[in-house]
């Protein structure tokens, strides 16, 4: 898919994110907006997904013969919900139920409510990379050559389990795994270098045996090129880690450059100001 087409989808996804968070006055818009370009690239371009004869995606829990994505930083749920709905996994109108009672769109993603496209619960941080490794190893055992992708936050790197997984994947040559870290430099209590300095994440993962790539996560073209490069690096004995520089709140000028919008919903005026900056390309839900 052309970069321009992906940018159009991303604009609509960003509108969905803002409207969903506004609709329930709750949720995490900042990181969702920052990672939009990556998820649009993965689901609308890079990933090979199971589909029926008419080309509509079909959800299968085991992900056999298709690429699998895991969202480890589950708080950016509005993003994954919008992308899954726009890709055709479940009805778009269901986005209106986000974080509301009796909804399949829980505050943090879960397969518990049988939402198509979600394979694991995430929200309690630091667990997704391990799950992704497990599925990557299952694919190897099944002689399935497709890829497993995983997205984590940079604040999430504080969690110890992440480093257990970081040590394991190169040791076991899990080279069908492409992980991303959303390096937006922000976490709830402030800038990551003030709260808990990750220092050089690239050097750290490199020392554990990962292949490291860098990209601008808010430049659709760079994202497309880098994800393709990551796929090409697979199968050579090492897992791939892509450090993705992003701006929390990307796409909405007054939400960028601060951790303030990590977990705050816009009010009516702020929503209207934000939507004015994002073209409605596919029709609002």
């Amino acid at each position, binding site marked *: 898919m052309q970069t321009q087409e992906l940018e159009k989808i991303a604009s609509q996804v960003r509108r969905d994110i803002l409207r969903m968070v506004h609709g329930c006055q709750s949720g995490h818009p900042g990181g969702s907006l920052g990672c939009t370009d990556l998820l649009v690239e993965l689901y609308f371009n890079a990933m090979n997904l199971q589909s029926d004869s008419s080309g509509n995606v079909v959800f299968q829990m085991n992900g056999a013969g298709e690429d699998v994505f895991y969202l480890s930083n589950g708080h950016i749920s509005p993003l994954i919900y919008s992308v899954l709905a726009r890709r055709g996994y479940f009805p778009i109108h269901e986005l209106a139920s986000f974080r509301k009672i009796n909804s399949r769109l829980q505050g943090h993603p879960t*397969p518990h409510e049988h939402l198509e496209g979600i394979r694991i619960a995430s929200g309690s941080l630091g667990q*997704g990379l391990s799950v992704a490794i497990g599925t990557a190893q299952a694919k190897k055992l099944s002689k399935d050559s497709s890829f497993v992708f995983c997205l984590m936050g940079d604040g999430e790197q504080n969690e110890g389990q992440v480093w257990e997984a970081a040590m394991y994947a190169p040791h076991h040559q899990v080279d069908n795994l492409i992980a991303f870290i959303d390096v937006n430099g922000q976490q709830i209590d402030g800038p990551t270098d003030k709260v808990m300095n990750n220092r050089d994440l690239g050097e750290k993962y490199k020392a554990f045996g990962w292949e490291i790539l860098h990209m601008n996560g808010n430049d659709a073209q760079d994202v497309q090129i880098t994800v393709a490069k990551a796929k090409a690096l697979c199968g050579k004995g090492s897992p791939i880690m892509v450090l993705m520089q992003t701006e929390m709140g990307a796409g909405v000028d007054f939400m960028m450059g601060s951790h303030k919008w990590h977990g705050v919903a816009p009010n009516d005026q702020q929503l209207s100001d934000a939507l004015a900056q994002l073209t409605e390309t596919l029709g609002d839900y």
Partner: protein
Amino acid sequence: MAQYTFDTKKDTRSGFGAGMEYLSLNNPKVVALCADLIGSLKLEAFIKNSPERFFQTGIAEANMIGISAGLAIGGFIPFATTFANFGTGRVYDQIRQSIAYSGKNVKIACSHAGLTLGEDGATHQILEDLGLMKMLPGMVVINPCDYNQTKAATIAVASYEGPVYLRFGRPVVPVFTPENQTFEIGKAIHLMEGSDVSIFATGHLVWEAILAAEILKEKGIHADVINIHTIKPLDTQAILKSVLKTGCVVSAEEHQLNGGLGDSIAQYLSLHKPTPMEYVGVMDSFGESGKPAELMEKYGLNAASIVEKALKAIARK
């Protein structure tokens, strides 16, 4: 003459190893993970038969739980193995989110549960694991009593779709249940017939319950002895049937009273058939170093304690 006898004593963890050996040959979907304790978990035969289906995680239990969930999504039946302390309490949130809430077909199989771990002391002697695991919605909790039953349970849980906690231990205990038995999850086993007191025991305490019943018999008291190998789902029908006959209860387990088998039975009976009840278990304390038998004696987890509590329960009728 005693109703139950035994020729050998074996550790229940070896029963697990034998079950895994069977699964290595008979179920290609079963995979095993271990956090640097292959010998303790008796996984050598599984690894020898199917090295490609074994994953060494190193001393990193949280990661092991997550990888297990990922393997389960990919269609495999993972057995995540380590000591009970590290496989439950240490990784509670990982089990809660990635396995229980996510509904993954993972078997958490743990050895060295309870006081009978012995000399390593309280850091390793978890007495809270049954409670932790049974509180998780959808989690099946199994604590078999001897080698043969542990082997059968291991084979049975591989065919059950859903999360399971399988708990076993280190010491050698009498092998008194049948070889090659069929294990039915959630189905209590009636061991001895009696109408004076119900003794509901699990794990290593089942043999002690049989010994206690023999002692009580000499006093003219007939105990109804039931092996509750599955703590969740609890066989409430078997419990009610026994209690309607006996009118009083003793529960026996190598676990804290808080959150254990006795708690589950009491909760059920309080709603359906309030009954005088006494408990054999650990009274809100940690364990300590010592020989397994010394510890079981000191903490009152043996036949003598069961007899004492049975007499007390009968007196309260």
